[in-house]
């Protein structure tokens, strides 16, 4: 049976990654874990002493799912910007790929699947360390891994589609600073969105990261406000992913097969 063309693209990424995996895994996990140690343990100690945690929950337990989802987003975004421009412009390997039976759409799909696998690995490492540090009180916590991957894939799909038609990487820094970093800080990652000004709270509903954080938090703490809210978060993220994939396939097709 023929291998689906998107999986041939995943295999290509795997072969390239095998050469550099140590540096890559180190990079993708060490910074989130430093954050977790500093915020969860260092800052958390102050928060716990000052106000008894967040909503009665120990600060480490509160911030662990937030950091997990936010780090997944950052990794998903980073892997979708420079590497895509490299493939389409600097090395032109994407042009080589679409001159084979692989279509532009399959190339897009393969790349997004590959990024999701990378996030899966990082999120798993993160969760294991968080368990050891005591940040994951519930066994449901294992479900935070697919939740983080789902959230990251939303960003991966959209940013793949964005990056493929760019002429240079200059706007990427702006996207990170003006787009992703505010999301990183204000999507219920480090403090509940109820602490945001009233007018800003509805805005957070549109942040895919907020939905991913809420899902991760429900999993690691083992408590959800309601079953309906879980379904709502998942539905929102899946809808964003579907829209991102539709757009991304179009953009890849336009950029590579005009």
């Amino acid at each position, binding site marked *: 049976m023929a291998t689906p*063309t998107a999986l041939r693209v995943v295999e290509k990424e795997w*072969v390239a990654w095998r050469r550099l995996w140590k540096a890559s895994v180190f990079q993708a996990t060490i910074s989130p874990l430093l954050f977790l140690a500093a915020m969860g343990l260092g800052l958390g100690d102050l928060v716990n002493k000052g106000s008894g945690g967040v909503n009665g929950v120990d600060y480490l337990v509160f911030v662990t799912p937030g950091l997990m989802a936010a780090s997944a987003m950052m990794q998903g975004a980073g892997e979708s910007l420079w590497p895509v421009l490299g493939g389409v412009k600097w*090395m032109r390997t994407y042009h080589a790929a679409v*001159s*084979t*039976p*692989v279509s532009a759409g399959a190339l897009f799909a393969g790349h997004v699947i590959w990024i999701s696998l990378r996030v899966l690995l990082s999120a798993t490492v993160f969760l294991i360390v968080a368990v050891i540090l005591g940040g994951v009180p519930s066994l449901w916590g294992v479900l935070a891994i697919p939740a983080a991957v789902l959230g990251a894939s939303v960003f991966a799909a959209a940013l793949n589609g964005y990056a493929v038609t760019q002429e240079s990487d200059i706007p990427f820094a702006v996207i990170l600073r003006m787009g992703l970093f505010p999301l990183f800080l204000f999507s219920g990652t480090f403090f509940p969105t109820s602490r945001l000004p009233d007018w800003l709270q509805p805005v957070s509903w549109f942040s895919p990261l907020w939905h991913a954080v809420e899902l991760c938090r429900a999993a690691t703490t083992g408590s959800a406000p309601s079953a309906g809210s879980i379904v709502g978060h998942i539905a929102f993220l899946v809808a964003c992913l579907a829209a991102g994939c539709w757009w991304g396939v179009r953009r890849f097709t336009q950029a590579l097969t005009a």
Partner: protein
Amino acid sequence: MIQGTNITKRFGSFVAVDGIDFHVEPGEAFGFLGPNGAGKTSTMRMVGCVSQPTSGELRILGMDPAVDGSKIRARLGVVPQEDSLDSELTVLDNLIIYGRYFDLPHAEIRRRAEELLEFMQLTDRRNDLVDPLSGGMKRRLTIGRALVNQPDLILLDEPTTGLDPQARHLLWDRFYQLKRQGTTMVLTTHYMEEAEQLCDRLVIMDGGKIVTEGSPRELVARHATREVVELRFTTPEERDRALPRLAEFGERIEALTDRVLVYTQDAGKVVALVTDGELHPESVYERRGTLEDVFLILTGRTLDD
């Protein structure tokens, strides 16, 4: 192998390819000769099924690219104009990955890769990364990569542009070998020498249109003359003074900024007339007629313009 009828490609209001007709027979080496911007690469992208014609009918290997693009691409070997190797991978891994895009089994790709490395004289670089390779080696690897699926049809877009003569001749030698094995080749070039050496039949393109079609020998016989005398003059004034006389000596002349070409069946006779006529050119050079002359005569411009 390929049948194109009234093929047009537009990008917005820009017409890159303007209603061309061409066909390629099995086992043939077919060329698109023309200057940069003539529409050669756009045509190659359509034949390579990575770009759809805006209008016209294209059949490749008996199939319609709009319907069976992926199936057609599975049987093509594409050498793009710009390098598109993966510099994060080794020479060997570049071949393996590309073979996997065609879903070839790993063992089969490895066997073919070793053969291709040998054929392209890259065996001793097989485990090196791509980046430090010379331009000629990268080109050879790109060509080897295009052969990994044992294509029925090879598309070479400006295959030797930017290479030094030695690297170019090594590639030509490989193309001859492929030709002898009966491989069908389509190539674009703006080097008339490359077209003359490699093509059984070619079309000359200019401004998105096909200007003429035939074998290199036929085209020279039809549009140019067997021999050409090139004269250089010390000043434009002397050149202009000589033009009316030169026009009498040959069948036709072309006055370029730096030289005058006299088209004739007998170069020796023209040279004798120039010497007797006391025209005092700075230099005189006899040569045979080439595709460059065909292009010049048909378009009024040189291929480098």
